[in-house]
């Protein structure tokens, strides 16, 4: 059974239909990529999945449960975590506190929320440190998020999602704004996560995802115009047309 079913999901902003009747299925343990030119509606699709925006129509089913319209702060507790395309951290908190807060939200119990000292929550701290370790930021745990480089902030962005111990990981262009070197590092990082989590990955650059994805959906003007294995997508003429057109514009 699929872990995530998106059924005929649409979102209209006035006259603009940013997401138009999208239907997809993500199998547990797989890496599912969504590609498409600028403005195709990829981020909007994530915003619908995570409750940041209510859909205009359609259904989202996670692990057999209809979660359409669940508010954003409840989504994390279902085991869905996301990273953002535009870095979205807690700038004045340390790296450790950034991930700690994300880890605590998903802790076994909130008992002692306003009274127990944070260092008494061993399980949470361990999970937070592990998430920093996963992205290679352990050494900088006590620096502030605003003090590290853009590339490191992108890694921290990912760590925040990992700290929640999610069952479904939604990554929105983790390599956005990275140099070629940093991009290589990020690709390796995501590759390392494959198999440990069920992942939906939004990515702009075709070459990055061909090697890592199990399946790929191509979005264009809000609709999925092609869906299949990397090999199938590569052969698809419509994709080539949409993509070349879109990329030339973008």
């Amino acid at each position: 059974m699929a872990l995530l079913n998106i059924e005929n999901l649409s979102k209209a902003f006035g006259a603009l239909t940013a997401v138009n009747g999208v239907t997809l299925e993500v199998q547990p343990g797989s890496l599912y990529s969504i590609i498409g030119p600028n403005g195709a509606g990829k981020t909007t699709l994530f915003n619908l999945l995570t409750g940041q925006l209510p859909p205009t129509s359609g259904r989202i089913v996670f692990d057999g449960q209809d979660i359409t319209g669940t508010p954003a702060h409840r989504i994390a507790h279902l085991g869905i975590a996301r990273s953002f395309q535009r870095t979205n951290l807690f700038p004045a908190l340390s790296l450790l506190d950034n991930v700690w807060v994300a880890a605590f939200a998903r802790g076994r119990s909130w008992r002692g929320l306003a009274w127990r000292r944070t260092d008494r929550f061993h399980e949470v701290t361990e999970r937070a440190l592990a998430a920093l370790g996963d992205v290679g930021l352990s050494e900088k745990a006590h620096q502030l998020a605003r003090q590290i480089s853009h590339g490191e902030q992108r890694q921290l962005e990912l760590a925040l999602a990992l700290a929640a111990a999610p069952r479904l990981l939604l990554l929105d262009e983790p390599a956005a704004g990275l140099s070629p070197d940093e991009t290589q590092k990020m690709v390796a990082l995501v590759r390392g996560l494959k198999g440990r989590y069920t992942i939906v990955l939004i990515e702009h650059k075709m070459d990055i995802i061909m090697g890592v994805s199990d399946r790929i959906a191509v979005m264009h003007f809000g609709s999925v115009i092609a869906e299949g294995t990397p090999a199938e997508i590569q052969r698809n003429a419509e994709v080539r047309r949409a993509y070349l057109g879109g990329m030339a514009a973008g």
Partner: protein
Amino acid sequence: MSRAWLVIVAAVVLLPVVVRHAIATEIWIFAIFGLGLNLLLGYTGLLSFGQSTFFGSAAYVAGYLLKQYGINVFVVLAIGVVVGAVSAALVGYLCVQRSGLYFIMLTFALNQMFYFIAYQWTSVTGGEDGMPGIGRPAVLGVDFRQPLAYYVFVAALFLVSLWVMKRIVESPLGKILQAIRENEVRALSVGYNAPRLKLLAFVIGGAFSGLAGVLYAMLFGIVPLEAIGFVFSGNVVFATLIGGSGSLYGPVIGSFVFIWLSESVSVVWARWPLLLGVAFVIVVLFFRGGCVEAWARFWSWRAARRARVVPANADGAP
């Protein structure tokens, strides 16, 4: 015990020797008030301009109970804390969904509403004349009409309040509120119901304000109408910013500076608010973290100077 606590305990002991007991007492009361505000202002990033709503409501309720029934001090304090928390829950409920200027204006407007209720309801509050004749019943044979005895009582409650607030800001809630201050969208996304947690911050802050309000009513034997007015709300924001909203101890230092200035300097110079204005401008322009930051910067500046001097001597360089 940390150095900060040693300094505070020393201040608690020395203060009544240096200044009048009433002023010394008022400093710690105002510090409790500031601690409550700073959970909102410093930690959650919510500039509440209506804290006297909770302070004043608790002061009136406690004053009324003391006057009419002369009930036990601890019971009155507990009731004051509850009144502060409940009024803060009401105000908070209406405010936490707003942000920025709307939030500030709404806390201010609701404060005004409570003010006008107190102003109009003269049969209970005494309106403009205030609610006089509030006693300080003895506790366990200790006569609280003795200024020093009351000072010790208030100072002890302040230390307890400070300890409680320290626990709160060092708990997960402290971190979460800071996360909400830093980035509410992300805080929601990682799984926090930000409005609900802001409301919790309001309630806790209101409880502290309520405690301060009751102690204030008992200190002066009267609840003046100003105790629920916006100037009072402004003063606590002012004092906290001057002390430093970024730290647990900021509002304590701010209260010290503010009350001391307003009580001492106002006697010799009627235009003392000017001095506060200047202090405020300096804080806003140079030390966003208030006295606490100024102090930290002074020490790091000294340390840097020493570090520069020592190797120069060792090398024998000019």
